[in-house]
């Protein structure tokens, strides 16, 4: 089932919130923790709200509003989102305060923002959208489930669905990642993470939203054909089979695919499979990587969705994302990403 991408909004560790440009320059980080580049939030919220809102609440909500404005839609038909970890910074602010005062008197401000559905419902509140509002919080399937929800909604006769995902690196998460030795050793640069010697991931974050519609229009970026998730594949063969059957189910084939967006991240054991696929299966496609731009996080596939949208519309591939150039015109794009046991595939086509 084809859905047209008619509006996009992305806030990430790169300058991505301005839809009139496409990665004009890549921001370099000399740390293993990438943080969102803030948009001018005063354009979206009044001063009082801004003071109360946590960081993710601001950039998550703003990304949704950018997508709606881009699509020229005041009220979407439904809102469905994914977030693996909800709003950890405000939640932990509340947790810290209750530990500090030993459960005596705590302010509800941060508790109010602590439920996972806060961003999704905040957008509903701002644009007065009374219809279906969902939030999936399942690790590397969070954004993918929201996409499935959007496809089901379309079948159920809802149109112009706002779908998106958002996550942030909290201090706790960053400390936990350090503890498990997942992170890249500092000093490091995000512009050099895919070399064989460089192992370890960059902690990342971001928010990306899309308006998906049944009809295409002059603002359409491209079409989203379908997605598929699979859990705990037993071996590389199973991954390969999932990729090939996914293409077949969507009436496509490996030959037809021009561009692969791979979730290669610097994580040794995971990248090993990805690199092998790049060598053996994706032999004629231009291969792109994106996690040096936004870092690794469980809903990073939403950033990749944004990247695919921009490429399809502009028919340009920025040098900064090219891992292997086979000089193919970007008409058909396949995304393969994974986060631990969660694997996901998405298929896009130019309009």
């Amino acid at each position, binding site marked *: *089932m084809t859905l047209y991408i008619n509006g996009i909004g992305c806030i990430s560790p790169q300058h991505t919130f301005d839809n009139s440009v496409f990665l004009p320059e890549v921001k370099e980080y000399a740390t293993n923790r990438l943080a969102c580049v803030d948009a001018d939030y005063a354009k979206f919220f009044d001063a009082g709200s801004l003071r109360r809102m946590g960081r993710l609440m601001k950039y998550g909500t703003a990304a949704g509003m950018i997508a709606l404005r881009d699509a020229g839609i005041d009220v979407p038909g439904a*809102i469905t989102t994914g977030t*693996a*970890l*909800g709003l*950890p910074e405000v*939640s*932990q602010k*509340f*947790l810290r305060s*209750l530990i*500090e005062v*030993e*459960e005596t*008197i*705590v302010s*509800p401000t941060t*508790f*109010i*923002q*602590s*439920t996972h*559905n*806060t961003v*999704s*419902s905040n957008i*509903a*509140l701002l644009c*007065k*959208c*009374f*219809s*279906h*509002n*969902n*939030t*999936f*919080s*399942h*690790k590397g*399937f969070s954004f993918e489930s929201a996409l*499935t929800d959007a496809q*089901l909604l379309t*079948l*159920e006769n809802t149109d112009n669905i706002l779908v998106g995902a958002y996550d942030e690196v*909290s201090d*706790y*998460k960053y*400390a*936990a990642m350090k*503890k*498990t030795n997942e992170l890249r050793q500092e000093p490091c640069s995000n512009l050099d993470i895919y070399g064989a010697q460089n192992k370890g991931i960059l902690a990342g974050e971001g928010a990306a939203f899309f308006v998906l519609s049944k009809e295409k229009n002059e603002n359409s970026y491209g079409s989203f054909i*379908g*997605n*598929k998730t699979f*859990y705990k594949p037993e071996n590389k063969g199973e991954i390969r089979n999932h990729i090939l059957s*996914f293409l077949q*189910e*969507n*009436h496509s084939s490996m030959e037809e695919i021009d561009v692969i967006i791979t979730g290669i991240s610097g994580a040794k054991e995971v990248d090993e499979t990805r690199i092998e696929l790049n060598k053996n299966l994706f032999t004629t496609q231009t291969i792109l990587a994106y996690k040096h731009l936004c870092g690794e996080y469980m809903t990073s596939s939403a950033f990749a969705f944004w990247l695919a949208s921009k490429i399809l519309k502009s028919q340009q591939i920025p040098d900064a994302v090219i891992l292997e150039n086979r000089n193919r015109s970007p008409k058909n794009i396949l995304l393969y990403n994974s986060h631990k046991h969660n694997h996901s595939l998405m298929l896009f086509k130019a309009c």
Partner: protein
Amino acid sequence: MAFHKGDVTLSEVEGSCIMQGKSQQIHIAGKGAISAIGNNVAENFASLRNLQTGVSKITVLTTRYAETLPAAEVKLTNEELAARCGLNSNEPRTALFSLIAAKEAVTDANIPDFKKWRTGFVSANTVGAMDKTETIYKYFMEDGNTNKLIEEDPYDAGYVTELVANELGIKEHITTISTACSSSANAMAYGARLIKSNQLDIVVAGGCDAMSRFTLNGFNSLMILDTNPCTPYDDNRKGLNLGEGAGYVVLVSEKVAATLSKKPTTTLSGYANANDAFHQTASSPEGKGNFMAMQGALEMSGLAAKDIDYINLHGTGTPNNDLSEGIAVQRIFGAVPKASSTKPYTGHTLGACAGIEAVYCILSIENGIIFPNLRFQTKMKELDFTPVTELLQNIEVNHVMSNSFGFGGNCSSVIFSKAN
């Protein structure tokens, strides 16, 4: 987008059943529950009939408020829960509840060749691993000591779902919904939609949540906790009591239902998700989102308001919820059918409540019984109706509506019907 062994994709069902509104029935083949009033469905049913409340003094959770804020705890330690389900007792309490109830539901369904079908697990929770984190976090704050940190983020709701999916042996489609107190209603609806669109044959759907100092202090900071056992829909209601537990149903397609030796008694005949878009934590005075959710669920089921025999109200006991919900119920129904909140029994179990209450609605249909709204005394002056106050038995219950409304204006209603 296909998650399955079969060959049918969404694009192929386009233009077929769901577009024409003649979608297949979703049968409920099994149910499982654990709450303050029982560790399984039979114990819950006995407590419901015996008017036995689960609200009492807090004894399991370590909190300053143990003596002052009553709650509906499952009176088992994590070690005792772990012994019942086989998970490690170090895992989040939320996961221990989830596995106990989900396993009961799957066993109850007793589906022959369970493995041959395309099966999903759609679970809901709102606190994730918070019960573990809130204890460890103190050390992190004191000296940045990361040795004790658990890898799971406090709010990693999906961690809990994967633990349980692994134990149930479900791999095909796994996801987690977290829309505050409406979470498990949305999990059931999403599961039903995956079956209707022919992506799955079976979905174990519902939700779980455990008590935590985080939520207890959060609700307390909003001043919506009652210092006595809660009294929903009473004019003198003061607030809610928190609870904990899990509730799951096994949703199956018509094709699966036809293979079962124990025929399903109930179908999930309607559901709807709407947003109040009024305030982050409060309901609009007229209950707009509540109204739209109930109306949407009725529309889908093809039933008229007068066909509903019983409403399991969200009825948390907060002044705001009961008033908004009550006004919306009156607008939808005119003559309000028999209605009650079962939260005086279980407390408000947040992400688990629609799952647990789904089990109660099915029990109501199966046994021709309606559970009372315990402790009700005084009619709300703004409303024309009062809830059921006595156990009603030997009556015909064909269609039951269950409401769940949450933070963020998330409003969901589901309807259960007696299977033909």
